């Protein structure tokens, strides 16, 4: 009965109630969205580096090494020599190592030159290994394994061939047209940068950048049928590559994936340098000594970083920005809560008669004050539910775009203890702010007949 009364009272002032709920809904949505994206970003980053003990790259700051090699954000212009990689990966304490060669891209997606150890050893999240959604891992120098996200957003299938561009960015003017690659496999989505990467054998990177004629490469390393499709594609591309990107994708005819026995081709070649490599130490205890050894490596200036430590430093840097964002969201929330109190306070005059009726039938001034509190709580509860739904819907709609643009996988399930805590804070603040109109109602009720 009590809630019915509060609810009916709000319904009798539909427009002001609606506007107040809307204002609160917007600010709570902001609060929820910022909190959720913050948590999800942290989670994403942690997922990505979960299985890696050390990342080694040319000497640079640990954040730079982490971002450029693992997250493929920005670039480390310096490289590590192949000899160093070989030497380090043969160390006793190293369980496995994965070389990474970066710098090229396909339609804005980074191309990662690596070896088969990548698919064998790389782990994300809670020790989950990479797995293939379709196709198989690359087995020849002109094959590529693409991340789930690349496949989905560019509508690529196993058997299609693609032309990799030189350098990063969506618009590139230099393409490795002489070395098309065939998509041999598509990885299952991981929620890490792997999803938006194109993986090719190290040798492919080497070949692409060699100033040699395409024919000689084709005959020496790739199967004839693969070359055929590639050449026909090449012609399309030469006409007007930029404009026809969309068409090209649909015109590409998939070919049967050639059966290639393992070890048929050399997938590594003779690289002189790579961008970085990831290491799993033999035991957790070995990580620190290994890191110290590598940071003192004599023949080359390299940095070995612990991704988790680098992440912590990154959060410290980003932390200030997060705090500012949260503060803004909090202030916006305060503004709308004050609006809520104002609305209830302003309604007090027109409700004098309602209050006198309630008093006449035996309601105490406390009852009236509690009624006002209940109305405030109802408004906030509705705004919280609305914001929860709004943010969920927004993420369901924009989640793909976020993944696309920023490589951040944001779950549409926004429930977390942190969000729950935020909701409780909103309710508590509502209670505090509504004390003002509730007190006014109390006084009104008490002295109404004087």
């Amino acid at each position, binding site marked *: *009965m009590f809630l*019915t*009364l509060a609810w*009916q*009272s709000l*319904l*009798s002032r539909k427009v002001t109630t609606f506007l107040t709920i809307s204002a609160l809904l917007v600010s709570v949505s902001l609060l929820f969205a910022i909190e959720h994206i913050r948590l999800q970003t942290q989670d994403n980053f942690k997922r990505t580096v979960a299985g890696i003990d050390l990342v080694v790259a040319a000497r640079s700051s640990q954040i730079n090494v982490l971002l450029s090699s693992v997250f493929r954000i920005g670039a480390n212009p310096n490289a590590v020599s192949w000899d160093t990689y070989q030497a380090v990966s043969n160390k006793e304490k190293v369980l496995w190592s994965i070389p990474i060669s970066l710098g090229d891209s396909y339609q804005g997606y980074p191309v990662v030159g690596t070896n088969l150890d990548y698919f064998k050893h790389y782990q994300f999240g809670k020790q989950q290994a990479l797995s293939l959604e379709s196709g198989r891992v690359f087995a020849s120098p002109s094959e590529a394994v693409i991340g789930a996200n690349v496949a989905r957003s560019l509508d690529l299938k196993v058997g299609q061939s693609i032309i990799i561009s030189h350098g990063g960015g969506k618009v590139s003017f230099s393409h490795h047209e002489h070395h098309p690659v065939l998509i041999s496999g598509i990885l299952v989505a991981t929620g890490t940068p792997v999803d938006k990467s194109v993986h090719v054998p190290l040798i492919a990177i080497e070949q692409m950048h060699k100033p040699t004629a395409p024919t000689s490469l084709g005959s020496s390393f790739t199967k004839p049928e693969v070359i055929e499709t590639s050449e026909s594609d090449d012609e399309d591309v030469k006409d007007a590559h930029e404009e026809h990107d969309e068409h090209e994708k649909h015109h590409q005819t998939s070919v049967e994936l050639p059966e290639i026995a393992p070890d048929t081709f050399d997938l590594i070649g003779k690289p002189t340098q790579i961008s970085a490599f990831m290491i799993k130490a033999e035991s957790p205890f070995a990580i620190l000594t290994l890191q110290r050894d590598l940071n003192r490596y004599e023949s080359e200036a390299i940095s070995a970083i612990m991704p988790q430590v680098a992440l912590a430093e990154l959060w410290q840097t980003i932390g200030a920005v997060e705090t500012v964002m949260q503060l803004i969201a909090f202030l916006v929330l305060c503004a709308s809560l004050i609006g809520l109190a104002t609305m209830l306070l302003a309604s007090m005059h027109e409700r004098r*008669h*309602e209050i*006198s*009726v*309630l*008093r*006449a*039938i*035996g*309601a*105490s*001034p406390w009852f009236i004050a509690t009624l006002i509190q209940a109305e405030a709580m109802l408004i906030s509860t509705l705004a919280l539910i609305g914001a929860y739904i709004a943010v969920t819907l927004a993420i369901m709609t924009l989640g793909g775009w976020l993944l696309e643009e920023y490589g951040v996988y944001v779950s549409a399930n926004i429930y977390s203890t942190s969000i729950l805590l935020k909701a409780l804070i909103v309710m508590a603040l509502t209670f505090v702010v509504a004390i003002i109109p509730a007190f006014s109602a109390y006084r009104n009720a008490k*002295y*109404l*007949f*004087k």
Partner: protein
Amino acid sequence: MSTAITIDNLNFAYPKNRQVQRSKAARNVILNIPSWQLDMGKTAFLHGPSGCGKSTLLNLLSGTLSLSVNAANHGEIRVLDKSINAMSNANKDAFRAKELGVVFQQLNLIGYLSVADNIKLSNRFSSGSSEFNMDKLEQVLTNLNLSMSIVNYKANQLSVGQQQRVAIARALFHSPKLLIVDEPTSALDAQSTAKFMQLLLSNTQQLGASLLFVSHDMRLATDFDKCVGLPEINKASLNCELSQEGDS
């Protein structure tokens, strides 16, 4: 014999801090009633010009206004043989909900609630439980010439005449021993007024409740057991024409 209302040596002036905003005249004592009573089961018609303290008296009787005893305020008010000024505020609210039925000039109902919800809410306060007897509601409404078809209407969808009858229905629903009614016909036309008065008196009698009816319209006084002018019993009413405060 027990009485519905006993007023003994009552002296009332509004508290000082509230007087600041009032006119000079109103700062004087509003009520000074040496003695007055209404017997149980009887009906009384109380009349008097505006500003005589009619509403003040009603608010004191129903407990919405406190008689805080001090130099200016003293005396005793007994309603249904209980001393009102000895009760705590919470007890006054409970007493009003349970034992009294109060009806104002107009706007007696909560406009955004349905007729049924208005009466249910009142019943909630008087009985303390959410149990509600729909048959009883029908009975009470029928007695007041109201059909059950209006129970789901919002109170503000009804005509003023209907609203006042629903207000009586609400006040009678919990079978109060005393009904306090303040100029309920002021917004009604002559025909509705006559009908309303007849229904009010017959229902009160049927219930055996006492009735204190306040109006300045002497034509309505005919069927009451007792008819009294407030200036006759209130010694403080000499300057009542000067003040409009405290009334209405």
